[in-house]
């Protein structure tokens, strides 16, 4: 069994490497590889002494920040793991199974192999990926080095964390499968486990939140040493015992020396062995679930290749009413908006998406709550809202077009049909881009509303009257759709101009060359964002500066907004016209050869 697995893995790896090396003859892969190698060299491997913590003071400062950041990252990671485990019990698959590829199912399931051997095959297969990931993370994320440990210790630490989690999820799936088969009280079992997880999470939260609140609202919180606070927190008996399972798993990673590492390794390996025993001794029929999982993953991969947004949970599409009634007469662009919004509904308003949104809101409320009690509302919460909104707005403008792909990119497989429609190219392009533009604009509008409410919440800026605030917000809101539209024209133009590059970059095969290609696309997107924004921003600044002395701030902001709208709309019209012309001449059969 082990021999067969090794044969499969080693030959697959060798063929994969050979294939990757051979395809470097194509410029798109060669260029992607060169960019990725340059990136890793400059940002990860190349040590810059001037930027490092050379002085003792800097090292101390980084150490303080590091311990708090590490604790925060651990808390978030553990919470995410807990949520993932709870979710497996709350919404289990119809047929829980183990992760096998379709080819593995085709060859191994009918083969004369015991079920236990199949489980071992699955665990060993996962180990290959886990070992590779552990080494990779240890190499890449050890550069800052504030944890003061060795790369080998970090690699083993990561291996324990990932292996334990993998075994736990496999054990959960097998247990669910077993319970579904054998227990008439399957729902009661699930309810019981979920209740236990929720009770555990609540106990954990309340055992720590009191001390966190006291620390944040204390008069000398800014002066208190983060390490002292963390020590205090861990000395709380309830918190200490409740976090024990997580600390056992995480301790080897955080060991600062070989002695501490070996001491932490023993309990972690015992926990790992217990998990292994759980998985290997659970008798359950996982075959049907594994087949369903493999089919779902294959469908998701196909969808990704079609450029569709990854679906949360990978559920089958459902028939839904349109987002609005589509009249038979009217601009045909609206039909594309209607169609693309309809196809985005499950991703935007699906049950799981709403559950995740609600969890994020609870998390945000839990995080902001203690802060808002600590100081004046405007003083503490407002800057956080402004910064978060600005970050979301930035990500929406720069990364949103890469994620919201329900446009020409999503309809690439239907290009034949689209080209038979009696529409000019620019109208087809506009129609296809309307839905993602609407989605991204809605997000930008939310950030503008939040920012306009939170900026200078204490009223320190004299000239920022409510009227000016609303005027600026409305001006920015009116420019948002054009900005989003232009940003969406960029990746669609890349797709039409270089479909070979586009198809390679959207495939999920990964690899360093893909990483490089995505970097190139990211840089192109950023370049165009600047190219579009700089003239508009310059014009706005010029108009405000030259006219505010004559008309006052309010009217000058309106004039600036009109100038920005004129520039952005001209750019959008030009971009749409060009994209439409390119799509009219677009010949996928030529490009795919």
């Amino acid at each position, binding site marked *: 069994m082990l021999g067969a697995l090794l044969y499969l893995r080693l030959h697959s790896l060798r063929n994969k490497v050979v294939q990757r090396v051979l395809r470097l003859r194509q410029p798109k892969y060669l260029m992607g590889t060169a960019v990725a190698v340059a990136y890793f060299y400059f940002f990860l491997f190349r040590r810059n002494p001037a930027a490092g913590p050379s002085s003792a003071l800097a090292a101390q400062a980084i150490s303080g920040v590091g311990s708090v950041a590490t604790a925060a990252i651990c808390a978030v990671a553990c919470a995410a793991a807990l949520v993932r485990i709870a979710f497996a019990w709350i919404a289990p698959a119809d047929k829980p199974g183990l992760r096998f590829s379709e080819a593995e199912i085709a060859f191994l399931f009918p083969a004369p192999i015991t079920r236990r051997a199949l489980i071992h095959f699955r665990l060993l297969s996962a180990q290959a990926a886990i070992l590779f990931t552990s080494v990779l993370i240890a190499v890449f994320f050890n550069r800052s080095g504030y944890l003061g440990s060795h790369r080998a210790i970090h690699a083993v630490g990561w291996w324990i964390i990932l292996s334990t989690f993998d075994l736990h999820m496999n054990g959960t799936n097998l247990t669910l499968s077993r319970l579904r088969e054998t227990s008439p009280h399957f729902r009661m079992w699930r309810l019981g486990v979920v209740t236990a997880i929720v009770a555990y999470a609540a106990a954990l939260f309340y055992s720590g939140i009191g001390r966190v609140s006291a620390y944040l609202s204390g008069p000398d919180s800014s002066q208190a040493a983060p390490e002292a606070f963390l020590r205090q927190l861990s000395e709380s008996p309830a918190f200490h015992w409740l976090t024990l399972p997580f600390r056992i798993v995480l301790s080897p990673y955080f060991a600062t020396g070989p002695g501490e590492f070996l001491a932490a390794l023993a309990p972690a390996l015992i926990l790992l062995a217990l998990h292994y025993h759980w998985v290997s001794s659970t008798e359950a029929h996982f075959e049907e679930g594994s087949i369903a999982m493999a089919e779902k993953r294959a469908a998701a991969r196909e969808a990704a290749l079609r450029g569709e947004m990854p679906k949360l949970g990978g559920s089958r599409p459902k028939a839904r009413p349109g987002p609005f009634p589509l*009249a038979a007469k009217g601009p045909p662009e609206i039909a594309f908006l209607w169609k693309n919004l*309809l*196809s985005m509904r*499950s991703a935007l308003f699906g049950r799981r998406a709403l559950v995740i949104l609600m969890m994020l809101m609870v998390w945000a409320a839990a995080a902001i709550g203690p802060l808002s009690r600590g100081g004046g509302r405007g003083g503490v919460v407002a800057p956080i809202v402004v910064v978060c909104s600005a970050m979301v707005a930035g990500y929406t403008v720069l990364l949103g077009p890469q994620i919201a792909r329900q446009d020409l990119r999503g309809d690439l497989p239907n290009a034949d049909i689209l*080209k038979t429609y*009696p529409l000019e190219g620019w109208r087809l392009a506009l129609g296809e881009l309307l839905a993602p533009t609407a989605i991204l604009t809605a997000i930008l509008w939310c950030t503008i509303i939040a920012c306009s409410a939170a900026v200078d919440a204490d009223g320190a800026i004299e000239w920022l009257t409510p009227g000016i605030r609303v005027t600026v917000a409305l001006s920015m809101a009116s420019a948002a759709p054009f900005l989003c539209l232009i940003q969406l024209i960029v990746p669609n133009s890349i797709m039409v101009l270089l479909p070979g590059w586009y198809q390679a970059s959207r495939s999920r095969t990964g690899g360093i060359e893909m990483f490089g290609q995505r970097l190139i696309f990211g840089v192109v997107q950023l370049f165009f964002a600047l190219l579009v924004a700089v003239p508009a921003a310059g014009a706005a600044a010029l108009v405000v500066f030259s006219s505010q002395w004559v008309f006052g701030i309010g009217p000058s902001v309106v004039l600036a907004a009109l100038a920005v709208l004129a520039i952005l709309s001209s750019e959008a019209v030009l971009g749409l016209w060009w994209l439409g012309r390119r799509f009219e001449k677009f010949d996928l059969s030529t490009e795919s050869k």
Partner: protein
Amino acid sequence: MIEVEALAKRYGSFTAVRNLTFSVRPGEVLGLVGPNGAGKTTTLRCLSGIIPPTSGSVRVAGHDLSADPVSAKRALAFFPDEPRLFDYLTVRQHLAFVARIYGVADHESLATPLLQELELDGKADALPGELSRGMKQKLVIACGLLHSPSVMFFDEPLTGLDPLGIRRMKDSIVRRAQAGAAIVLSSHLLHLLEEVCTNVLILKKGEKVADGTLAGVSAQFSNGEAGVSLEEIFIRATGGSEG
């Protein structure tokens, strides 16, 4: 109705279609036949405006496809061999979407009999994922017929249809031709072409080998023999080799 003049399509150094000239008048059904790789699908895609020809001209319903593609496309419908549908639109929503694109005002009154004719009326609210391949093919046909095109291009129209569906498809093609439509269909099913087509165009390696009425082409390759089948004519015309 369809006028093709010196049509050529090249992919780099490879010529898929060269110097193709023919016409299809209202009421005619032209069968496009040829071995694999002869350039049938490329020709159909050029005729329907999906890919631009390298040279030559195509006029559809009096409109030049290069100069006035919108007017030309308003008159045509293309039916691909592989049904391409929007995953999240139901059967009914597909028809509503297409109606808006082509500006078909009374699409609901047209859609109902069309769905009945194609036996899709029970699946009006189903997504493509819930349809069999044959049903998907029927939906593509329904979408294509909704705006009552006067020019139709079928690429392997019978693929995936059951025997009854094949019979209905053949009847539908003949009926629409009798109503004045100009139709081009490509297929490897030569008995279908014998039953449905008025004219035939044989392609080999991107070039026209024969073009004309079934009787005319038969006479050209029958060597004076009587009752020679289209299959035999096809083999004689193409030399029995790959495209």
